[in-house]
């Protein structure tokens, strides 16, 4: 297990190094430098700058140094916990990304807190009796909600609960501090979009387990159904959903661009969109590294959890 963890962490560092180098190379062009200058000063100002003044401006912003110098400086900064400076936001990248990550984390936490019990419950109920009316109803709902794009769900919920009934705020920008009411619509959107997928995985896994010989043996022994499900079926049925649920963390940390932008929620996704529009490379770098870390770490947690839930994996036997 320790070898697995070390190997995954090593992979993560290698991936971060490769991705950051690629990003540095991609943004190391004259066109990009010009774009930053136009975004910062305006097109008219840049067109009026003499060449020497333009070069001096690039020097001042640290954009004129050779790629390897900037990269080494950036890595050196990272070792000191300095993620660079956001030209667009006029602030240090570390605290900026940290604050946005905390907000996205909060959104993810509330979403998972609702999605996990809901999806597992519905998935187990559907998988317990395959092809029953309960199964068909839950499966239909799950397929429908999963197939609707999250933006469409967001628009529908906003039209209904904010603009129509006036029960909730339409947007989730927390200008005056945290407000629970502003978190309701984005969380609800994500829950509706996400629960169906996990429900379907849980249902399939549960249905497979319920058809296994050891469950049939338990039924023939006359054990009560509740005991069969809780003691014998559930643990095995949860292996597949657990993996999927952990991988949702990756999506919830770095994949909420649409929802955060639509609801004006100040999380990582919205910050990435703004940085990409502006060309704020140090913010893009930091968020990319964060996304790589989230992807690798969630996979690692998934592997560890999988091994814990599956005794064959723990003992080193073939799965």
């Amino acid at each position, binding site marked *: 297990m320790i070898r697995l963890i070390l190997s995954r962490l090593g992979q993560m560092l290698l991936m971060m190094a490769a991705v950051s180098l690629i990003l540095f190379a991609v943004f190391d062009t004259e*066109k990009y430098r*010009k*774009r930053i200058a*136009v*975004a*910062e*000063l*305006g*097109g*008219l*100002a*840049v*067109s*009026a*700058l*003499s*060449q*020497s*003044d*333009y*070069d*001096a*401006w690039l020097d001042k912003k640290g954009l004129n140094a050779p790629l390897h110098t900037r990269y080494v400086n950036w890595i050196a900064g990272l070792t000191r916990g300095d993620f660079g400076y956001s030209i*667009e*936001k*006029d*602030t240090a990248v570390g605290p900026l990304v940290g604050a946005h990550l905390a907000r996205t984390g909060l959104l993810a936490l509330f979403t998972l807190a609702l999605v996990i019990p809901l999806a597992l419950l519905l998935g187990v109920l559907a998988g317990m009796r395959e092809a029953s009316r309960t199964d068909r109803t839950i499966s239909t709902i799950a397929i429908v909600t999963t197939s609707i794009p999250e933006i469409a769900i967001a628009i529908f919920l*906003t039209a209904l609960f*904010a*603009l129509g009934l*006036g029960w*909730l*705020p*339409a*947007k989730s*920008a927390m*200008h005056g501090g945290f407000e629970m009411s502003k978190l309701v619509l984005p969380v609800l959107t994500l829950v509706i979009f996400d629960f169906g997928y996990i429900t379907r995985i849980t249902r399939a896994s549960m249905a497979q387990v319920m058809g296994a010989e050891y469950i049939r043996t338990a039924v023939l022994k006359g054990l009560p159904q509740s005991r069969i499900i809780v003691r014998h079926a559930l643990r095995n049925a949860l292996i597949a959903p657990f993996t999927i649920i952990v991988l949702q963390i990756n999506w919830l940390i770095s994949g909420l661009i649409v929802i955060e*932008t*639509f609801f*004006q929620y*100040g999380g990582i996704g919205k*910050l990435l969109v*703004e940085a990409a*529009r502006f*060309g704020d490379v140090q913010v893009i770098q930091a968020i990319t590294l964060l996304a790589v870390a989230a992807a690798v770490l969630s996979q690692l947690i998934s592997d560890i959890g999988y091994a814990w839930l599956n005794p064959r994996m723990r003992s080193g036997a073939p799965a």
Partner: protein
Amino acid sequence: MNRQALHPLLTPLARKAESGEVDRREFLRIAALLGCHVALPAAASAQAPLAGDTAQTRLPFPPDDPAAKSGGILRVAMPVQKMHDPATYAWAEMSNQTRHIIEYLTITGPDNITRPMLAERWQASGDLRTWTFHLRRNIRWHNGDVFTARDVAWNIRRWLDSRLGSSNIALSTFSAMLEEVPAGRKTGNKRARPAKRIAANAIEIIDAYTIRLNLTRPVLSVPEDFYAYPTAILHPSFKPPFWKNPVGTGPFALKQLAVASKCILQRARDVSGTPLPYWGGKVYLDEIHYYHYDQDNQLAALATGEVDAIYAFNAEQMEFAKSIDGVISSAPTGRTLCCRMRLDRKPFDNKKLRQALALATDAEAIRTLVFPNGGIRGENHHVAPLHPEYFPLPKQQRDAAAARRLLREAGYPNGLTLTISVGNTDGPWQQAICEALRDQWKEAGIQLNISLVPASKYWNIWKQATFGATAWLHRPLGTMSLSLAYRAASPWNETRFDDPQFERLLNDAEAVADPRRRKLKMEAVEKRLQDAAIMIQPVWRPEYTMTSRRVRGYNAHPSQYHQFNKVWLA
């Protein structure tokens, strides 16, 4: 009538206005354009007074509403951006965040007329090379310092330092205060752009409250240039970032800034907490809160009461806006889309082809389609009806058959296929215009393909595209846009138009201070550009904004500038 300091051009006109021979509103408009505050007796005309034409005649703001109530917080949805250095602002939103803290020498109102603000009046020499600004004597900075001509000179000198990177240096007024020095250092194989420095005697401090600008060439737009958004006057102690040291002359002070979240302004106060006296008269709001919302999300925030006003909305959001209980405010603007052609590239080096495109276009139909609730028909010469020098030319009529004939003469008997690049940098209405052109041009045998470019990428190719749809911002004078876009030597000459006769005519027009005479000169300028057919410019877009019903005195501005001195909450 107070004829003290009356402009020489105004004296005969004033007599006619008093006798009723000249329309009173027109007289006040011309007086304002010439930098004079004048008041006529209300009995001289039954027309409603213009802004500034009341007891507050010396102030550039709208008159006080007798029903106005003091107090309250105005919450405005707008992108909240950084406040680093007002002289290098690249967005109007940035300037709105500081507009009520630091102020300008002049102010251009929602009516597109520029009036004195920190200045009390201005005078221009007959050749428009010497401009004298007389400053108000009752203005103090928030730190107690008296506002003087030295402060203005300090700001202008700072803008003219080419190392600062301020766009002000490219404005006609300030570029006319520079002289070239030997070329700057080259980078790679690129041509070095020449360096410039401030000309001797360009800025003269006559006395504590009078400053004179000596320009190297005639400039008409000096008052308008002093209200360009990066020209706010800073205290000479200023060191960036502004948010750390926000000293101004305005009625508000910065309380809190969180980029991409909120910007809170509160009434400027002294150390004891007492509001500082303000030179501009009554101000009603206690605080102004800017909350960060992208433009697409502002109406929804207004609809659910999260804000009281928004920055702007687009034409395609009009139906949603109408469904909200609030007040829609619109303003005509000089903002437009120029479907412009590169004259140095085929096939647009062919004038008959270009004229055929103009003939195949029905601008009024496009305006009705794209802006059914407003907008003004364009005339392919980039001067708008709201510009004071606009001369109305006969309207161009669509004639598809004639366009087809012209195409034949141009060497395209079987028609041709063109591709236009559009970036929707100001909203999807730009693409809608291109699609309308595509439909209209079919009848004349022209197949138009539309190449959609991401908005952020369009500004990388706007000058390179052979056929591109470029959005141009509002400028108070039509001649300002013409000088920027159609003079051969201008860095923004995206069409590569090079017509000495046009430039002579434009020079003639720009050398005339009297707006009525200038208007006559503009006939030839507009005609020359229209005949050259270097752009298809079907519409002037309106500016839309919206407030809740409790907000009073909030008007749409053609440049999206916020002027909240007289805004109040019911």
